[in-house]
């Protein structure tokens, strides 16, 4: 018994990363960043507005949060739809009450299906970023590049035309990518993407079509991960968010501006028994000294101006 010789060879064992997409850099070695008006913590509230198709293909995997029952899985289809009909309007009230400027990550299929909601969002003027076509339109290792390029183009063309916004940002459904995704995103005019969770601040990411910026959108703190994946209570989610807020604020005082990124979903936190927990978290964060609520692109621009 033995393994192929290559298993004990390490061709990438040298300084830096084992790929050339971005440079190795410790957060503490970077130039401190200042947010507008002397603020310390940028609050980026990112709202997933998602469409989970009833006829889910699950290629190459079933998207987390998607259909799990035999067709037609009405319970999950309609419960996810709840977020876009009911939950989101609770969210909007909460954002206005606490002076939060949210960013909406929208599946293009959802934008096509809900002109009323898109009108509401356009009227508000908050930033909209592209969350892919729909939750079952995954990007994945080994995906055909032409097919993926067409998928990205369809999503961006549709969302740009329906929202009238330039659409600078991208989150892949399930944050899943192929090896080509960053190149294709940059080639289609995307400036920043949020799939890589390896930092608490933005950083430059190389692509065949120029530089993308990776924006830090924590998975570990998102509502779906904490409440559904981990099974923690709603109160525990609030506690974790508040602890993160305290920690990042303290770190920002020593090391320069930080970002608290909350990725949340109206089908989850928009339920009647959970919305008060979102309000409690927003109340806590926005009552701290030095918090600046802003859209993802606005935070990015401020960061970029100091690099």
């Amino acid at each position, binding site marked *: *018994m*033995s*393994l*192929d010789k*290559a*298993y*004990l060879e*390490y061709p*990438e*064992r*040298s*300084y*830096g*990363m*084992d*790929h050339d997409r971005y440079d*190795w*850099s*410790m*957060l*503490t*070695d970077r130039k401190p960043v200042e947010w507008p008006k002397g603020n310390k913590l940028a609050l980026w509230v990112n709202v997933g507005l998602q469409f989970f198709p009833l006829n889910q293909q699950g290629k*190459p*995997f079933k998207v987390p949060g998607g259909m799990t029952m035999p067709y037609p899985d009405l319970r999950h289809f309609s419960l996810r739809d709840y977020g876009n009909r009911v939950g989101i309007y609770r969210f909007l009230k909460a954002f206005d009450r606490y002076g939060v400027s949210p960013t909406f990550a929208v599946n293009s299929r959802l934008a096509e299906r809900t002109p009323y909601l898109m009108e509401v969002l356009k009227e508000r003027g908050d930033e909209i970023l592209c969350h892919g076509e729909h939750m079952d339109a995954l990007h*994945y*290792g*080994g995906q055909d590049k032409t097919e993926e390029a067409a998928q990205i183009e369809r999503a961006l063309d549709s969302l740009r035309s329906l929202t009238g916004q330039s659409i600078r940002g991208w989150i892949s459904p399930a*944050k*899943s*990518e*192929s*090896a080509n995704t960053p190149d294709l995103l940059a080639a289609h005019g995307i400036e920043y993407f949020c*799939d*890589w*969770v*390896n*930092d*608490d601040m933005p950083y430059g990411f190389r692509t065949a079509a120029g530089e993308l910026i990776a924006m830090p959108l*924590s*998975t*570990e*703190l998102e509502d779906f991960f904490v409440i559904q*994946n*981990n*099974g*923690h*209570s709603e109160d*525990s989610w609030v*506690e*974790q*968010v508040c*602890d*993160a807020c*305290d*920690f*990042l604020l303290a*770190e920002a005082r020593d090391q320069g501006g930080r970002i*608290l990124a909350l990725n949340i979903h109206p089908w989850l936190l928009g339920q009647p028994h959970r919305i008060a927990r979102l309000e409690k978290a927003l109340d806590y964060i926005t009552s701290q000294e030095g918090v600046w609520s802003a859209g993802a692109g606005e935070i990015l621009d401020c960061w970029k101006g100091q690099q």
Partner: protein
Amino acid sequence: MKEDPGFYDYWAYQNRPKIEWPNGAKVAFWVAPNIEFYELNPPDNPQRKPWPQAAPAVGGYSIRDYGNRVGHMRQMQVLEKYGVRGSISLSTALCDHHPEIIELCKERNWEFFSHGIYNTRYTYGMSEQQERDMIRDSMETIYKHTGQKCAGYLAPALSHSELTLDLFAEVGSELFGEEGGIYTCDLFHDDQPTPIHLRSGKKFVSIPYSLEMNDTIAYVVNKIEPRRYGQNIKDNFDRLYQEGADSGTIMCIPTHNYQVSCPHRLKAFEEALDYITSHDDVWVTTGREIAEYFLENYYDVALADIAAKKGGAA
């Protein structure tokens, strides 16, 4: 395949010869930060997939990178605040990839022990010679970059062969004589050190490393809340401290800089460290120091006691 690996004999947790740690401490307390490198495109292993999906495994790879880019410095500062020198379970390729981290830990006189080359290269399927070569490479790498003679081992991604402990101990002796390859963290059967049977007969000990206190087990496998993890640590300590009055115990917190150092988790960990280190009779130490102390003072006594009880409780 065997029914039992045969590394140790049954040895009841009562009426053992009393262990006294330095300065009358009841608990030997150590923290083992795993500082790991996972590859984006590792080669296939016939028995274990490194990532659940085809490359690139963006989620799994990038959160581990977060640990090195962001988390390490946070954890190091918290440990330093409470006077804890880390005993690093090291993916030794990290010496090449991220020498800045190695330098920071060296400056603080932390211990480095081997956790293989990469945490995406598994022992499964290796020949004896291949595993020996991999272990030797890891120990030589630690020596080259830190000057330390590697004393401990935690197999990469806890992937073992039947010979893992033998090979580690043998390579340790070949490279560094009695100072190298003296303890393992791979066994979870006890709260005190245990003499380990090796084919070479070398004096070698298992040092409790605790899977239950491991942040990745707590957060990823058991999926518990940060505050509950903090409470588990305090409760674990309370009982070991109490029992340590009768005979010295060991408490270890194995950590990962991509778990414990997330902004929503560090507070609970810090509170637990504060709690533990505020007690008087705690020996805040490292894996190597515990192993050396035990080998020097209690290894022979323990062997004799185990042998005397082999036939029964009398």
